[in-house]
């Protein structure tokens, strides 16, 4: 389970190449670095002094209990909100200094779904991912259409092009939304609990495709074993602070899991050096 593409380096947003093997097409994996991040809402501190680095092409898992600040951190990394303190750098350029449209060509975000009653076809939703590349009044070009169809097929939804969003199941929506993010050809892909609503097969497929993706990936996850299995590095948040960061084996220790989640565990190490967690009965 090696993250490919790390050799590409963070060359910045040069020409968007098409063709070639790495998927998504046209992605030049970016280096993401954040430090000293502080953020709050209505006087409540949500994040304090958070630091995080994702090397080009790496898959970084963001872990932590409910309310630990994972989603907030993801929004700040995506440039959807500005941190009160600290900085977020994409290939050494502050995310806040990159114009929105240019940023949308480099960072794609998959949030937790809220919209249910949208009467757009799955293909139209995927095509939204091409809007950052399209002049305001231009129609959808043949190349965009082709890219969107391929992305849907890659997501295992080849026959779903004309299905209305409102008629899709939660898992299908999740996969359509991922296809939408991938046709954005992001250098950095940020996902907020993308395994929600997915059955176990699709969870595994999703995580494998993220690990193999050409883009740099930061993903919030709840399942510690899946995170350990597929992520290159993990960042564990607790009450808005980074408790641990490093390889899965460094981060996921019995004592730390008990400290953060109040759950007692036994941990094995698999052949490829990744931890495997066994949960003890919660009652103590």
């Amino acid at each position, binding site marked *: 389970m090696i993250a490919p593409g790390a050799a590409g380096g963070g060359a910045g947003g040069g020409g968007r190449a098409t063709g070639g093997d790495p998927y998504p097409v046209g992605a030049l994996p970016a280096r993401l670095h954040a430090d000293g991040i502080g953020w709050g809402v209505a006087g409540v501190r949500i994040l304090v002094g958070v630091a995080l680095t994702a090397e080009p092409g790496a898959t970084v898992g963001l872990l932590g209990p409910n309310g630990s600040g994972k989603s907030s951190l993801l929004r700040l990394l995506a440039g959807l909100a500005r941190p009160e303190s600290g900085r977020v750098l994409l290939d050494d350029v502050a995310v806040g200094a990159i114009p929105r449209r240019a940023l949308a060509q480099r960072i794609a*975000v998959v949030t937790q779904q*809220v919209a249910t009653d949208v009467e757009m*076809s799955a293909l139209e939703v995927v095509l939204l991912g091409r*809007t950052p590349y399209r002049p305001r*009044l231009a129609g959808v070009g043949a190349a965009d259409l082709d890219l969107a169809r391929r992305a849907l097929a890659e997501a*295992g939804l080849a026959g779903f092009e004309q299905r*209305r969003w409102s008629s899709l199941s939660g898992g299908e929506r999740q996969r359509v939304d991922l296809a939408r993010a991938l046709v954005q050809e992001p250098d950095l892909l940020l996902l907020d609990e993308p395994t929600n609503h997915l059955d176990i097969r699709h969870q595994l497929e999703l995580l494998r*495709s993220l690990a193999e993706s050409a883009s740099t990936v930061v993903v919030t996850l709840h399942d510690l074993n899946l995170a350990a299995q597929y992520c290159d590095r993990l960042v564990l948040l607790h009450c808005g602070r980074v408790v641990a960061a490093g390889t899965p084996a460094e981060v996921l220790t019995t004592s730390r899991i008990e400290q953060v989640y109040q759950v007692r565990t036994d941990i094995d190490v698999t052949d490829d050096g990744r931890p495997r967690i066994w949960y003890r009965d919660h009652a103590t």
Partner: protein
Amino acid sequence: MSLPAARSPVPARGRRDSPPPTGFSRNGRYVLPLAVLLLLVTIAAAVSVGSADLPVDSVLRAVASHVGLPVQPLPALPDSIVWDLRLPRVLLAALVGAGLAVCGAVLQALTRNPLADPFLLGVSSGASTGAVAVLVLGIRIGAGPVDLTTGAFVGSMAAFGAVLLLAGRQAGEPTRIVLAGVAVSQLFSAVTSLIVISDAHTQDTRSVTFWLLGSLTAASWASVTLSAVVVAVGLLVCWAGASALDAFAFGTDTARSLGFSPGRTRLLLFTVTALMAAALVAASGAIGFVGLTVPHAVRFLFGSGHRTLLPACAVIGAIFLIWADTVARTVFSPQELPVGVLTALLGVPVFALVMRRRTGAP
């Protein structure tokens, strides 16, 4: 990336006859030109219908002679009926129907509220306040009295200004602007009542009814020209924002991550729709249910992708209001039914139908 082979496209949760998997864009490609054709036929037919029946070929002849084609002109009276009375009225109906439907579709998308209509931002109550103020208080600018249309437009803009003021710095935020719109509408309705009651002589509330229910009787070539410009510009601006409107359906964060500036885009579109609605209300009063119902019906036919939805709303809204007005002016002839009564009578069943389908959706 090695995702599995395509799964068969069997509806995963087909618990009822789900809508047929037709291509919306394809729908747009073939049905939209057809609808435009239907609109032209509708205009010709509606002009020929009335207390003095004129065959369609006479209508075409009258129009042809006025635009300078070498045809035999009609006699003076039928020519005047076509050119001075019916054609402006039918065209105004088309423009008002088109504009209100587009405003409704845009506002429903911006607020993510299926109940949003073109008068959401206080525009209609502002218009009646302005018109009544002119009528009762006899406001004058310079020599002549201000005409009612101007008064209504100024009133609408005052109301929308108040909405923006009340919404404050976060005017691009849908909930705030909707709440402000409700408050301002109430305020202006109260002011209208106050003005009407303050003047004992003008208890004749017919003009107030005009602004509340709407009517196309005041149609003229001047109002047609003005409305045409407003609707054309408004439609173009909204259409340029079509992808943004699509993205808003998935929330502010998604819209922003796709490169849009939600606050600024919303504020621009709120302003454009308010201007459109204000100009249309000034020309025809607040005709209800067109802006609320037509977008739902069109969404049902074409899907909610706004590149297709907005032009389709314009065409279908135009056809709908032309027929509604034609029935309104002919069915109890020579008495005329307020067109707003008819749009409500037709609109509510359509709305109920759409609502049933919505609640049935998973």
